[in-house]
């Protein structure tokens, strides 16, 4: 029986829904986990922004632990993630000019609703994804964390634009702009650009879908 080699179609020929694998090859789940950038330790950096108390879920134990393991059986995890991926409610926090591109992404020309990305019109207490658009000042930091804490699990964060990633125009010598929102939030997808074009944000949406589908079920 002919089997395609990695050179022909690298990595993708074993991407069945259960992540089955042959011989010594890698499944796409492992590939995603390998390429994932380890998150920064937010708990340590957030203290310098005046945030004293951070909302945290209770430690996993007892029934919760059993449920967590149950959710992470391959088939169940796949179905859960598939459902989550296919209907994303974004909440967006507009702090700078990237919001114009964010609005343009929702236009019929790009139409992210094809991929389950709904218009950002709801309450953040019912949303899955937080899109942070633009510069976050030092005074805004604890408010942004408050917004994040109010969202229900599972939740994901997209950092949009150079300012949200690293401070952008205000990097290095500003006393008032935080140098990347990953000091205060765990970020899933970074969208570079100043501002990013709608295509770039669209790619981020697709990447986030991929990450949700092949990641762990919380």
């Amino acid at each position, binding site marked *: 029986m002919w089997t395609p080699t990695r050179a022909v179609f690298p990595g993708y020929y074993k991407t069945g829904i259960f992540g089955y694998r042959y011989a010594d090859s890698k499944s796409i789940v492992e590939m995603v986990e390998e390429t994932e950038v380890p998150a920064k330790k937010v708990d340590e950096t957030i203290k310098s922004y005046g945030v004293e108390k951070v909302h945290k879920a209770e430690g996993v134990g007892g029934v919760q632990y059993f449920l967590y393991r149950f959710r992470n059986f391959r088939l169940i995890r796949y179905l859960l993630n598939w459902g989550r991926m296919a209907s994303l409610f974004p909440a967006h926090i507009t702090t700078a000019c990237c919001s114009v591109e964010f609005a343009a992404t929702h236009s019929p020309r790009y139409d992210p609703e094809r991929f389950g990305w709904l218009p950002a019109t709801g309450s953040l207490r019912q949303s899955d994804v937080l899109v942070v658009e633009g510069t976050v000042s030092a005074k805004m930091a604890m408010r942004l964390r408050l917004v994040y804490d109010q969202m229900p699990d599972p939740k994901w964060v997209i950092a949009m634009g150079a300012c949200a990633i690293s401070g952008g125009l205000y*990097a290095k010598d500003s006393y008032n702009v935080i140098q*990347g929102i990953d000091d205060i939030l765990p970020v899933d997808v970074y969208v570079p650009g100043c501002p990013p074009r709608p295509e770039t944000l669209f790619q981020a949406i697709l990447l986030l879908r991929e990450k949700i589908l092949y990641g762990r079920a919380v």
Partner: protein
Amino acid sequence: MTASAYQTVLESVENKFGKALEKIVDEKKLVKMVVEVGVLKKAAAYLRDNHGFDHVKAVTAVDLSKLLKKENKIEVIYHLGSYSRQELYRADLALSVKLDKVNPRAPSLTDIWPSCEYHEREVYEMFGVIFEGHPDLRRLLLPEYWSDIPPMLKDYEAPGR
């Protein structure tokens, strides 16, 4: 504003305060009087009562310690304007005072021009200048948890990454 209107103001202030008026800078766009700290309030009242400078446009400060002459001082500048005298409508007269950088203290001009209040609060938080007699000297814009030195001083180092 015509040059003669400035000239009369400057001459009369010079006659009135004499040596307390340290310096007059008269350049193309800026006419500035540097006075001593002791007579700042008197000079301000004199300008308001006798020359019709009835409001303050801005209060700013400069840290001179790393500029060309390297004086260890902070200069507080009041930009004055007038609504009541027609020949002074476009005037921008600067009244400035140089303070010691180690312990910068100046009399507040809020009882002469009430519009100084928020400007002086900003100078207080950005440069650490203490205005004596200010009714409400709190920080204005910086975050609540700020614990560093005032950020506009030249010694300040931004945290960066």
